[in-house]
């Protein structure tokens, strides 16, 4: 036989001594959990491994040490920064032109079904085509120099950005679209005020992929065509150092490529992410 269970009511017990329900973590723990701190630690670890291996190998022609690479980069600072400036100029022009073309094509694609098919067909045709494969053609059309570089960069940026943006637009929830149209928003205002922010995670992913493609394509293009050495960029710097068997300078050039890529990814894109998609809860 089961015993009867009495009903009861009581005031909630005092929880005042727990203090604030939400408290900041202690400083040490916050530092250890900090993303930047962890990333810097990883980089330092990689540098230490590099230095240790190069010292153990002790063969500067094959594998110069980190300190040697930095020393060469420092003595070469003037030339290196000139090369970087030349590369960045071509890159920024190409990137901007690629984004502009992508904006035009995606606007056409959201405006009509024909535009959407036009864009998806073009993307299917050209996205798998490595941009560097167009370089010979670009050289015939535009000759040696920046226009050829811009041409291949546009090609590498355009399709990645356009494809991602269109995918993002298509994924905007119907309710959000309707609450925009409810206000009488149409045309360009509708795209700018509703579609672009709502699709921003995809657009940002497209921008990142586009940036990486452009950067890779550009360095590869500079390596391939021996532009006049005075106006050549970072790729040319690496190529020229190789032909002189100056491995430390090759390393310095490569290091510059890596550092710039890392800065853009870890500083610029991260800052954009933190102020947009992360803040809005659209991305973890």
């Amino acid at each position, binding site marked *: 036989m089961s015993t009867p269970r009495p009903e009861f009511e009581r005031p909630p017990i005092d929880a005042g001594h727990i203090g604030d329900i939400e408290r900041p973590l202690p400083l040490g723990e916050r530092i250890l959990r900090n993303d930047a701190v962890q990333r810097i630690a990883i980089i330092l670890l990689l540098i230490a491994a590099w230095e240790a291996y190069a010292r153990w190998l002790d063969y500067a022609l094959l594998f110069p040490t980190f300190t040697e690479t930095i020393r060469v980069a420092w003595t070469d600072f003037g030339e290196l920064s000139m090369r970087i400036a030349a590369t960045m100029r071509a890159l920024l022009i190409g990137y901007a032109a690629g984004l502009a073309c992508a904006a035009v094509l995606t606007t056409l694609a959201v405006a009509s079904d024909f535009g959407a098919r036009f864009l998806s067909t073009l993307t299917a045709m050209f996205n798998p085509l490595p941009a560097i494969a167009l370089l010979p053609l670009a050289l015939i059309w535009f000759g040696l120099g920046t226009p050829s570089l811009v041409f291949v960069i546009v090609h590498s940026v355009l399709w990645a950005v356009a494809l991602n943006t269109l995918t993002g637009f298509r994924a905007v929830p119907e309710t*959000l679209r309707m609450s925009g149209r409810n*206000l009488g928003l149409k045309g360009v205002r509708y795209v700018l005020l509703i579609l672009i*922010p709502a699709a921003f995670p995809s657009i940002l992913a497209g921008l990142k992929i586009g940036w990486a493609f452009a950067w890779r394509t550009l360095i590869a293009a500079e390596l391939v065509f021996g532009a006049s050495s005075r106006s050549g960029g970072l790729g040319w710097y690496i190529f020229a150092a190789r032909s002189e068997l100056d491995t430390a300078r090759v390393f310095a050039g490569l290091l510059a490529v890596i550092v710039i890529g890392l800065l853009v990814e870890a500083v610029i894109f991260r800052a954009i992410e933190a102020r947009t998609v992360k803040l809005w809860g659209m991305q973890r």
Partner: protein
Amino acid sequence: MNAAPLSLLEVSGVTLQYKTARHLVTAAYKVDFEVRQADRYVILGPSGCGKSTLLKAVGGFMAPVEGTIRMRDRPVTEPGPDRMMVFQEFEQLMPWKTVEQNVLFPMKVTGKFPRDEVEKRALAAIDKVQLSPFRDVYPHMLSGGMKMRVAIARAMALEPDILLMDEPFAALDALTRRSMQQELLTLWKQLRFSMLFVTHSIEEAMLVGSRILILTPHPGRVRAELDTSMFDFSNIDSPDFGRMAKRIHGLLFDDRTAVPA
């Protein structure tokens, strides 16, 4: 009785059809109803009676294949801020805007109020739904009920001619749903706005609504229109409330047991 209240929305002989990939679906068939100023007009019906489709048509998101929808004697042809919609889904808020910016957005876009007034209006609307401490918070940090309150504040701040509510509380838990119904009624008592409210809950229809239009499913046709203005939370356990609920139940589910008035 005082002078006849202003007729606001007139739906006459409206048939609504939409196409899926394989079928042509008739959602509503020759539906008539009229919403007057300060009505809390509820469309009630089981799923498949085309009640949400009707609301979308009033919102201007789809055109009837037959019949007319007139708002203040002007035919409805496209969506517009005079008919602000509150949806069931939480994604109706713009995730890239804070609570306050979400409420401000419609006023800024439509330019309905002078620029120097919108800020004050937004804060007043947020205060009315008791979200003042959360005005600078982004929607993803809010609970479902709070998001719904923001959506209601956003719609109300614009002072539309009519508020269209598409099962706004259906996605909320039972406790939150109950307090939201109460809040909506309190707001209505203060502001006397007109609303068209779609639901599939008999109890919600009777509590929130002052008039109920009952639709039959497949396709949605008018079955009855009832006056429920006398019911609210104070008489929810009265015999009259129970009788009316039973009558509505009969109208919805079984024609034979329908109790005459």
